[in-house]
């Protein structure tokens, strides 16, 4: 048995010298251009950050590549952001351009700062997860290829945070993103009655269903469960606890899009994202339907929102009816909540627009 419970390396060994020196004593910052930050310390010291995009799913050789850059220009230090971007840090202004050049050589876009689209928080998808109703990395790639310009520039009204989760477990802050792309099933679980009794805890399985759709099999001989079709909304929570209830389906699986969430407390309090497109098919490798509608929404937002107005703030101001009108997304029964807190979403006023 080796070591245990040693915890992560202490960050103090990881931060560059200039950070160590000015730790906690920063005064202000500015964004010099997309992807380049300048932080100034009380001491007068400067720290330049070059932020570069990353596909997140990377090889060790990729990591070695960026280590080379860090060794060359950053005294062997670098960091990652909470959205997977790579940050090269240096106190030396002169090194900024060379770092940018080096990043470009590696094929990494510099940007992701300020009022633009940063990297897309995402998840495993068909690359690793059993639960996935869609893939993740390819959609992110397809989207970022198209939104590329918004990454390397800062011309949106405000930050626009995109996230993707390959199933409704929503690994990531998907439920509070300006734009959220979520893998969804639309067929009920196919139960393997043979196996279920042996490999699943039946009470746990029954309790897992948010809508109470799961009951014991009416035939007491059969140690299994049944699903009430009209109550099942394909959340897959039963599958999570019981492998004998898969719901993946090549036609039934696809993507839903949510919009208008945010996390920061700036101006408006944090908000959840809300359903705007109930279903789009899985269409590998580039999911054109998804890419197209996302682009459309971003454009409508860019055109209509006011400066420093996040997606959700804009929608709140103009009203959801206006959002649907401007984006030309059809409004359907799926948009209307029918889960536990549904009534809180009903319009209990005569105030509305056309």
């Amino acid at each position, binding site marked *: 048995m080796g070591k245990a419970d040693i915890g992560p390396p202490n960050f103090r060994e990881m931060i560059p010298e200039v950070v160590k020196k000015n730790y906690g004593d920063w005064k202000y910052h500015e964004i010099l251009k997309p992807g380049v930050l300048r932080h100034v310390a009380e001491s007068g010291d400067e720290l330049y950050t070059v932020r570069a995009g990353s596909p997140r799913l990377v090889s060790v050789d990729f990591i070695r590549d960026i280590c080379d850059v860090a060794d060359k220009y950053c005294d062997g230090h670098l960091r990652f952001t909470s959205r997977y971007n790579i940050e090269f840090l240096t106190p030396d202004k002169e090194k900024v351009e060379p770092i940018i050049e080096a990043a470009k050589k590696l094929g990494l876009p510099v940007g992701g700062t300020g009022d633009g689209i940063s990297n897309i928080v995402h998840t495993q998808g068909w690359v690793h997860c059993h639960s996935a109703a869609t893939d993740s990395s390819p959609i992110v790639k397809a989207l970022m290829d198209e939104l590329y310009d918004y990454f390397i520039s800062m011309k949106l009204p405000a930050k626009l945070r995109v996230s993707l989760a390959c199933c409704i477990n929503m690994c990531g802050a998907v439920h509070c993103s300006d734009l959220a792309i979520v893998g969804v099933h639309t067929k009920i679980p196919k139960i393997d009655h043979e196996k279920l009794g*042996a*490999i699943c*805890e039946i009470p*746990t399985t029954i309790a897992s269903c948010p809508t109470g759709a799961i009951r014991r099999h009416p035939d007491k001989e059969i140690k299994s469960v049944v699903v009430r079709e009209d109550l099942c909304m394909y959340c897959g929570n039963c599958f*999570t606890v*019981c*492998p004998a209830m898969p719901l993946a389906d090549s036609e039934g699986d696809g993507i839903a899009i949510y919009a208008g969430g945010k996390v920061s407390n700036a101006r408006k309090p944090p908000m959840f994202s809300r359903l705007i497109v109930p279903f789009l098919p899985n269409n590998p490798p580039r999911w054109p339907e998804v890419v197209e509608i996302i682009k459309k929404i971003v454009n409508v937002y860019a055109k209509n929102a006011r400066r420093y107005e996040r997606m959700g703030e804009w929608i709140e101001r103009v009203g959801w009816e206006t959002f649907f009108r401007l984006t030309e997304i059809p409004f359907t029964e799926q948009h209307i909540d029918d889960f536990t807190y549904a009534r809180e979403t009903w319009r209990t006023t005569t105030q509305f627009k056309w």
Partner: protein
Amino acid sequence: MAKAMLGGIEIEIDEDGFIQEPDKWNKEVAEDLAKTENAYPMSEDHWKLVNYLRVYFLKYEIAPAIRMLCKQTGYDLKTIYKMFPGGPAKGACKVAGLPKPTGCV
């Protein structure tokens, strides 16, 4: 699905070595499973834990919560990891022939 010889009989197991035919479980099967989990030879303590898990499962059809397990058996979590280095879920439940835990334990 793979088969394994456990306690002298052929039993279906999954990739992680959990038995898929709970009815075939017996003491000998348990001991062979314990070997795969670095928990062999099984002491009285091992058996106390395994039996508690089985009785609980047969009664409630679920594995007990860890807190419950510790409270009821008197072993704290550290001790359980000593007995079953794979821990209560991977180690003890496997030996006890329970379904592979997805949530608790």
